[in-house]
């Protein structure tokens, strides 16, 4: 990771951005931005005026004055271009630092050999194509993004996530993806390449940032239309001023017309608009989230409902066994032994925690010749068949109850009660049976993440409803939901439940975000308005979502929502600021236009600016320098505070609206004090 990621203007980036500022003066590029394009036209006209004056024209003021106006207009354009360029450069640098991890590395490709069916051939990673298969052993750098088709390995993903703890990735299941540039620490895996070179999500994102394939988002388009509307109004205002001036016998110079026009049109937001959009994607990238489109970030700000998996998001990792509760007529020791036996082959963290809690010498258990029964979705239980014919099963309450009652045995009341108590305390009960008789119940407890309650509170204030998705029974789910402070939960969730919930919410007009990793999450990820796939997830999930989280961190959704909101807010506040600026600019320029022929209008010069020339110069200088001054704000985004929409509006209106009215009065006056030395 970039350590100095908070430094806004790194010198290498600035250099590149400066170069780009000039390249972007190309009208064909600038045409996409109607506001700045009109400034460019104005600049071109001023260049022509300067030439005209140089050839002897007298009515347009001095050459120096006109040259200064022309160069300030040019600088305004360069500032606006610089804003976009620096945002692009930062985004690109961020993406490059991720891409650097996947430089040329030797890959052990599996090819159809001459002697053996499969041979290992060392090839450069750049030669790998989609569908190729390679192997990686301990110590190897994974050459390309891919999906494990065979084996299991611990992998160091710190190159991407910055997280030093190794993770386990294995074939099948939901954690089968590996990323190019990460390192295999142990074991060996066989991987199928899933993307063509240059087409990974990261590559796509870089293209998105670079501008070539960057499409304006719907909201950006709507705002551009509004800004174009403003620009048109001011074109009308300025063009009609010519005959008005003629009528009043007030000659107005072309420089004054163009200065008035450029000051009035919303150049501040016009110049910063695309930088804001790019910075939004860039901020997502800094949070280690790759977005597939700018629209996704924007949509994230609108999210009404968040679907969160309980495990990993709300609770820390996995449940742990905390207590054994034998049935009335069952001996403690016997029960504990049964529990341990039932979990010996259970490699899930829960199973391991049961063996741990039992604290028995594993070797003392006679398991030779025993067969282990794996957990299946149908039986919803697992266990062991001992050689003497003893069948021990462990499973969900209703699954075991069904089994026991089918065999004609009663389900002991005290155990049933205990199950309820455990559930309502947020624990998970696992009932253990021996030869279809209930022996007792194991209590597993969830550990809720610290501070998660505050985070949900924050989301609630943003107007986002949180929904916890869990495989737990409704009682357990409710307890954890209450404790963590989520608004709703889906208990005993099957993959299609998520999908249905999303559809139901969407029918009510809400926008839904979810995070997922498994292949069976893919339809829901595609259905959700913002679907964030974990990078460790299956390829199907990553294709279906519109963002990929490199950290595989389920709480990332919360950050993503804030990034989206920040993006929209930055646009709104800078638009307000830009338009509010017009009040002061009118009062600077309009008197300056007419004072020469209508001296009475001196009364309107409330800023007491020195002369018409100094007033016009001060206004356009202010107009130009406000752009770079606001670049840091555009790139970092306006701070989002979850204080409710009305309070937020009041706050931003005060800062950027009222501030936008006052600041230029002060700024223009100060600039005038300096400029008046010469003009």
């Amino acid at each position, binding site marked *: 990771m970039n350590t100095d990621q908070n430094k806004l203007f790194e010198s290498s980036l600035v250099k590149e951005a400066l170069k780009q500022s000039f390249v972007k003066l190309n009208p064909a590029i600038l045409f996409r931005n109607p506001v700045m394009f009109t400034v460019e036209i104005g600049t071109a006209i001023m260049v022509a005026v300067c030439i005209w004056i140089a050839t002897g024209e007298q009515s347009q003021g001095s050459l120096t004055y006109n040259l200064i106006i022309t160069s300030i207009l040019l600088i305004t354009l360069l500032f606006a271009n610089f804003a976009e360029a620096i945002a692009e450069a930062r985004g690109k640098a961020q993406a490059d630092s991720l891409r650097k991890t996947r430089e040329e590395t030797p890959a052990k490709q599996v090819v159809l050999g001459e002697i053996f069916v499969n041979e290992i051939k060392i090839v450069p990673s750049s030669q790998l194509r989609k569908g190729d298969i390679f192997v990686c052993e301990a110590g190897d750098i994974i050459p390309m993004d891919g999906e494990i088709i065979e084996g299991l390995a611990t992998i160091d993903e710190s190159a991407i996530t910055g997280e030093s703890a190794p993770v386990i990735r294995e074939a099948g299941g939901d954690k089968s993806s590996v990323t190019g540039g990460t390192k295999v620490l142990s074991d060996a895996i066989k991987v199928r390449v899933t993307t063509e070179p240059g087409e990974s999500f990261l590559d796509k994102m870089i293209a998105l940032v670079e501008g070539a394939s960057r499409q304006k988002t719907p909201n950006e388009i709507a705002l551009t239309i509004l800004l174009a509307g403003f620009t048109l109004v001011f074109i009308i205002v300025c063009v009609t001023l010519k*005959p008005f001036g003629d009528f009043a016998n007030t000659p107005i110079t072309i420089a004054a017309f163009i200065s008035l026009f450029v000051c009035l049109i919303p150049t501040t937001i016009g110049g910063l608009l695309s930088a804001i959009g790019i910075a939004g994607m860039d901020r997502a990238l800094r949070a280690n989230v790759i977005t597939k489109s700018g629209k996704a970030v924007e949509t994230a700000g609108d999210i009404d409902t968040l679907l969160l998996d309980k495990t990993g998001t709300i609770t820390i990792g996995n449940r742990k066994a905390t207590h054994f509760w034998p049935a009335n007529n069952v001996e403690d020791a016997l029960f504990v032994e049964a529990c341990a036996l039932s979990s010996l082959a259970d490699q899930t963290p829960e199973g391991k925690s049961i063996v741990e809690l039992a604290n028995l010498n594993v070797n003392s258990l006679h398991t030779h010749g025993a067969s282990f029964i794996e957990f299946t979705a149908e039986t919803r239980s697992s266990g062991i068949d001992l050689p003497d014919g003893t069948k021990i099963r462990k499973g969900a309450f209703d699954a075991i109850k069904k089994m026991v009652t089918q065999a004609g045995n009663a389900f002991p009341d005290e155990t049933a009660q205990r199950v309820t108590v455990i559930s309502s305390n947020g624990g998970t009960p696992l009932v253990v049976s021996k030869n279809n008789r209930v022996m007792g119940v194991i209590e597993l407890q969830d550990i809720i993440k610290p501070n998660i309650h505050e985070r949900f509170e924050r989301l609630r204030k943003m107007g986002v409803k949180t929904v916890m998705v869990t495989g737990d029974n409704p009682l357990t789910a409710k307890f954890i939901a209450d404790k963590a402070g989520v608004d709703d939960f889906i208990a005993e969730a099957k993959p299609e439940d998520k999908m249905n919930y999303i559809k139901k919410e969407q029918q009510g007009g809400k926008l839904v975000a979810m995070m997922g990793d498994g292949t069976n999450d893919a339809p829901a990820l595609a259905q959700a308005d913002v679907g964030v796939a974990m990078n460790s997830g299956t390829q199907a999930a990553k294709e279906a979502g519109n963002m990929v989280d490199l950290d595989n961190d389920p709480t990332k959704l919360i950050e993503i929502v804030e990034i989206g909101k920040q993006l929209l807010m930055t646009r*709104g506040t800078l638009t307000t600021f830009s338009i509010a600026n017009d009040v002061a600019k009118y009062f600077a320029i309009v008197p300056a236009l007419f004072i020469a022929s209508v001296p009475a209008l001196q009364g309107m010069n409330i800023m007491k600016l020195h002369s018409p020339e100094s007033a016009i110069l001060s206004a356009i200088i202010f107009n130009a320098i406000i752009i770079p001054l606001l670049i840091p704000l555009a790139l970092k985004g306006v701070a989002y505070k979850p204080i409710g929409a009305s309070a937020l509006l009041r706050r931003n209106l005060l800062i950027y609206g009222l501030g936008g009215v006052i600041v230029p009065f002060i700024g223009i006056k100060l600039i005038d004090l300096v400029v008046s030395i010469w003009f």
Partner: protein
Amino acid sequence: MNSEILGISIIFLATVLLAFPLGKYMGKVYEGDKTLWDKLFNPFDKQLYRLSGIDPSRPMNWKQHLTALLTINLVWFLVSMFVLMNMGWLPLNPDANPGMSADLAFNTTVSFVSNTNLQHYSGETGVSYLGQLVLMLFQFISAGAGMAIAAVVMNAMKERTTEKLGNFYFYFVRSCTRILLPLSLVLALIFLFNGMPMTFKGKDQFISLQGDTVQVSRGPAAAMVAIKQLGTNGGGFFGANSAHPFENPNYFTNIVENIAIILIPIAFVFALGYVLKRRRFAWMVFAVMTIGFLLLLIPSVHDEMKGNIAIAKLGIAQPLGSMEGKEVRFGSAASAFWGITTTCTSNGSVNAMHDSFTPLTGMFAMLGMMINSFYGGVGVGFLNFYVFIIIAVFISGLMVGRTPELLGKKIEAKEMKIAAIIALLHPFLILAGTALSSYIYSRNPAVYTAWLNNPGHHGFSEMLYEYTSSSANNGSGFEGLGDGTPYWNITCGVVMLLARFLPIIGPVAIAGILAGKKYVPESAGTLKTDTGTFGIMVFAVIFIIAALSFFPALSLGPIAEYFGMK
């Protein structure tokens, strides 16, 4: 308290007190809810529908609404052109007034169809009684059409997803028969009892004290004045409009007429609250409009009561305030109050000569029309306001970090495009018209001296006012302008036509498109549109877009005149 101030305070307070129940009643009328008057009106309406073969329960989408509106307007346009050009030989013409020229008939027709009532003629000599009656009819139907189309927008703003927005003719007929007609009857009776003429007889004459025979024009005035005031029409029976003693005989009728100017525009806001079931939202709209109105009103009243600075400089006391162009029976405060109400609401009737207002009052009157939505014309005032709401919602929605939405409907590029076009249309029409005239005049001032009574800044104001009034569908004038020429008739006619129908089509299209969208339920993150903060935002948008665009033009007109007198 100064009795003049007391007089205008009574007008305003009485209006708000009357507007409140009226607004609720209007809401019921548009919602089809039960009212006390149903027994009386239902059979009447039924006959109308039967005669015209209309099924008032057939729902229309927004495009059908617009088609209906534009079609009936076209029919009215043709009828009016025919009558005005041929009234010389048509009946009901005791004073033998001639038919109008084509350009004047075009201007007059457009002016009445568009609810502007800009009059480039004088009622006494310019039209026959048949012409007056046709124009009176238009004062009903143009007002009714504006109210009906605003009812469509209100209906569309309700929170649901639908294409079906009620039936245009249902809203139209109800606006006319249940709101305008009964109120006009009441008003006309009040006027009758206060001495306004109501007759089809020709000119009367009397012999004055000097022994001269004086011809006095009269006619069916009381009926026309009632609807003229109520329907934000402003087309007077006589050339001098409500400054004429037959059109506004005394201080009491002045109060009544002035209440009538702003009554329905204010009641419409309360009707909105009733229809949407969002009273707070209606109060927000009312507050923004009222604050804006007061900001224009207070300095105007102050300036007029203070008197003319230039006269004061001569050492002449003006205890009655600036009385040039004003009627002594009304005084300066009531004249200024009327001036601002009539321009804010796109009414355009006058009880004093706006040309003679002190410069800043003239500017505030113009600003009222430039903004055109501080109450605004019946129905259409709200439509103008609606466009500003859309823009304000868009910017402030972004400021709270959400894709902007108004009453649960997302505002996207298409709506923004329409709103932007409509918002810039008004400045465009006004500034382009004035620019064209300035251009023509300044090329050749000698040829066009007849245009302007005053040279310089005031002359500029006269032209600016004329186009502002046309584009705001207001109809009042800075009467120093020689506007009875084909140039003014045609350019103002075109401006009125565009300024009437495009700002109706735009908001209806926006509301129609929004109504078809999915409803997004409110959450804590949703921008509340019924708060004071949002009201400030709307006000700021109106101030910066509508008012500031005219700042350079106003500087050369009234502002320069003001500083010049100082």
